[in-house]
């Protein structure tokens, strides 16, 4: 299941429902990303997530389907906030269910690298020093490049 959420969500509750829905899987890997309250030089109040009305969801769905095939996953959950996300709040939950742990881990790791650099989102960081649009770090692109088949 892929969803873009305009409001805060509870990652544990969503992960619990996901786990219950995946019958027979031996391994569930997950990642929760939270808005950090510190950037390099300022106190972060919130992020504002811009997205494309159709392309963002379609891109994530295509990436999730490709990952499901590549790693033989039983199921995938990706929830991503859009709009304003306060410091400390969850911005993303990615979870993968597989028969064995390596497939679950690698697919989840891959999906997060994908979301960081290849999914149509744009992050505005709103701090006590002003606002700035965030672009991926060089390391993020390097991480994403690990998965080229």
């Amino acid at each position, binding site marked *: 299941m892929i969803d873009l959420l305009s409001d805060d969500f509870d990652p544990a509750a969503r992960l619990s429902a996901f786990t219950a829905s995946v019958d027979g899987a031996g391994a569930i890997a997950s990642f929760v*990303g939270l808005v950090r309250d510190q950037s390099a030089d300022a106190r972060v109040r919130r992020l504002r*997530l*811009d*997205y*494309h009305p*159709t*392309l963002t969801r*379609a*891109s994530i769905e295509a990436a999730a389907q490709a990952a499901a095939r590549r790693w033989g996953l039983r199921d995938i959950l990706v929830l*991503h906030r859009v709009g304003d996300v306060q410091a400390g709040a969850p*911005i*993303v939950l990615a979870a993968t269910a597989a028969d064995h742990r390596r497939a679950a881990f690698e697919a989840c790791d891959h999906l*997060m690298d994908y*979301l*960081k*650099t*290849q*999914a*149509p*989102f*744009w*992050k*505005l960081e709103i701090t006590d020093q002003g606002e700035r*649009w*965030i*672009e*991926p770090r060089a390391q993020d692109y390097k991480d994403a490049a690990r998965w080229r088949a």
Partner: protein
Amino acid sequence: MATLTFFGKLADVMGRERSLALPQAVSTAGALKDYLCAQDSVFAEVSAQSALRIAVNDVLADDAVAIRDEDEIAFMPPFSGG
């Protein structure tokens, strides 16, 4: 009229959406990007900072993709989610 949409920091400077009657010479996504750079120094500045991605009618496209009036063309700075 083509519909141009802008995202991320481009939306800050260009607004979310504009209508444009495509000039005769502007027949590809890349040509439209060059046209906007020539018309708008702020667009040109953002475009120079980092490679823009383009989508035509909700499909990612490269600069060579043909465009025409009625199309919706999205201009997008580097993606940054997660």
